[in-house]
């Protein structure tokens, strides 16, 4: 529990300016991520869940340095990644990789899969020649494909196999952290469990940590050690996975969990789902106080006046609600 975190995100903000008029004056900002903090330990899976527009993907990109934070700090393996430059930044980047949602658009169709998987090793001048070919063969076996697949092109593979290739490429530099952005959402249901098993096996064997970004709560529950629930750019609840699903404390988490239809008609029809009213507010014009108050079934006057802080209510569980705990 006390191991130094691999990734330490503190008060991260990513705001996009809204420009209007002849002189493109900044008239406001979209607060995609608005002050979130979390840490990931080596070998751990931390999931960010939430609905579209909650800021979970932007957070993943900011962690990788693909998106410039407006404020806050991203420390990776003890080094401040937000201010790192040149050689140090390159070194840190080797240890962080990403697996995207759509395996069809994440591989260059003109390259053989061996070239795609070997590319990071060439770019970072780790291996070349025979050693490179051997490493590519090893990576293909690691993700459940055959070494002779290296000479083929992406179009010869199914969606599930392509996601295995993308995972092999992400593993090529032996990263310490992989950001998995909805890694199975684009796949057929009957091949999803293959990829989820692969991700769990690789973590056991290689000790890699995952920042797992998903809207699918049953997948998140199965894979994650800890979960952060995001709403409108904020983490509203964070807890160990078993705790979050057994005893959710934030009204949004409760509504989200109750809204997923269970694949069991007896259990599903016995439930009384919490149906939230209305739509998500725009992150360009978020509500005052608690971001969830406009849809919250238990909101009071205080919620409009005062933003609740993320405070601990149980071992490892933090909640941003005035009335939780």
């Amino acid at each position, binding site marked *: 529990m006390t191991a130094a975190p691999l990734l330490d995100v503190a008060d991260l903000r990513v705001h996009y300016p809204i420009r209007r008029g002849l002189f493109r004056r900044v008239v406001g900002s979209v607060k995609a991520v608005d002050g979130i903090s979390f840490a990931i330990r080596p070998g751990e899976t931390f999931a960010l869940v939430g609905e579209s527009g909650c800021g979970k993907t932007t957070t993943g990109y900011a962690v990788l340095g693909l998106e410039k934070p407006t404020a806050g700090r991203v420390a990776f393996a003890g080094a401040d990644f937000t201010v790192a430059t040149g050689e140090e930044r390159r070194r840190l980047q080797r240890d962080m990789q990403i697996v995207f949602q759509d395996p069809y658009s994440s591989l260059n169709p003109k390259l053989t899969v061996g070239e795609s998987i070997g590319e990071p090793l060439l770019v970072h001048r780790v291996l070349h020649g025979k050693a490179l070919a051997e490493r590519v063969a090893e990576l293909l076996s690691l993700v459940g494909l055959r070494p002779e697949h290296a000479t083929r092109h992406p179009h010869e593979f*199914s969606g599930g196999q392509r996601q295995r290739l993308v995972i092999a490429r992400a593993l090529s530099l032996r990263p310490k952290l992989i950001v998995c952005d909805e890694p199975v959402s684009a796949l057929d249901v009957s091949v999803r469990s293959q990829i989820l098993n692969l991700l769990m096996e690789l973590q056991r064997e290689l000790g890699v940590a995952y920042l797992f970004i998903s809207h699918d709560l049953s997948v998140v529950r199965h894979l994650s050690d800890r979960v952060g629930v995001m709403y409108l750019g904020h983490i509203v609840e964070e807890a160990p996975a078993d705790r979050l699903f057994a005893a959710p404390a934030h009204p949004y988490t409760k509504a*989200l969990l109750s809204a997923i239809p269970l694949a069991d008609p007896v259990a599903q029809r016995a439930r009384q789902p919490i*149906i939230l009213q209305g739509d998500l507010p725009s992150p360009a014009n978020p509500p005052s106080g608690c971001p969830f108050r406009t849809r919250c079934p238990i909101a009071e006057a205080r919620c409009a006046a005062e933003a609740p802080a993320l405070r601990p209510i149980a071992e490892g569980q933090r909640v941003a609600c005035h009335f939780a705990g």
Partner: protein
Amino acid sequence: MNAPLLLVEDLSVAIGAARVVDGVSLSIAPGEALALVGESGCGKSLTARAIMRLLPPAARHAGGRVTLDGRELGALDADAMADMRGSALSMIFQEPVASLDPLMPVGRQIVEAVLAHRRTSRGEAAKLALAMLEEVGIPDPVRRMAQYPFELSGGMCQRVMIAIALICRPRLLIADEPTTALDVTIQAQILALIKRLRRETGTAILLITHDMGVVADMADRIGVMYGGRIVEQGEVFALFRRQCHPYTKLLLKSLPSLEGERRTRLSTISGTVPDLHSWPPGCRFNPRCPLAVDRCRTDAPPLAPAADAAHLAACWETARMAELDR
């Protein structure tokens, strides 16, 4: 058993030489909700579109009959069929924003739907449209009437689609992945709305989905599709309690659940869904099926009573289903 409202007999759809819907038969009783469930490419959406006679240009009707309320839809001329759509049967789609006319205020789109089927004045139609917007839970409907689809959220657009689909009180609503593009809290709103309207109007529903949770929530009966065929069909509680086709069973087993043990190895189905031009002979699931025997590789099994007369499966080896529990 009532006379069926919708009867589909041996329906086939082809794209080039590939039979992407291959001999599908099903029936829906008045007021009943039947879910067709399956993965992408299984033919569930094309089945729905063939019923509506709205197949995409690349696909063609390759056999079979569709009867609604005793009228054979394939025998109607284009005008008569257009008249049926919206009045006797309606459809809502996965992409609500793309399904609406972007250049017309949503109120007018509902009014046009009324005027297409009823002899009434524009003023009367507008009153009906306003009442329908209220019925589908759109707040401030007078203001919304004048707005364009881009001014509405995805959830609001789907409510407008439902209003258009149901305003002429059709006997059958075909809902093709109606909540797939929506967030889960919005999905809960739309599913609750469809259930309420179904209770109030008695509309029968053909629900197309890949989500077993949505099926468990909404359906009276289920047809499971794989490779353009219905492989299992039954009453919802019976089918979730006991599966008679290996595909259904393995698919349900592979889903991570919201209860039970975490971080365990999930059950898998080997291989992938084949490309629609390379379906194998015999049972189309045979290359992925752990129970497959020689016969499965040559002869396609018919959809036949399995657990009981109302629970059908297309499997030669359904008696060996228990082996999949080991």
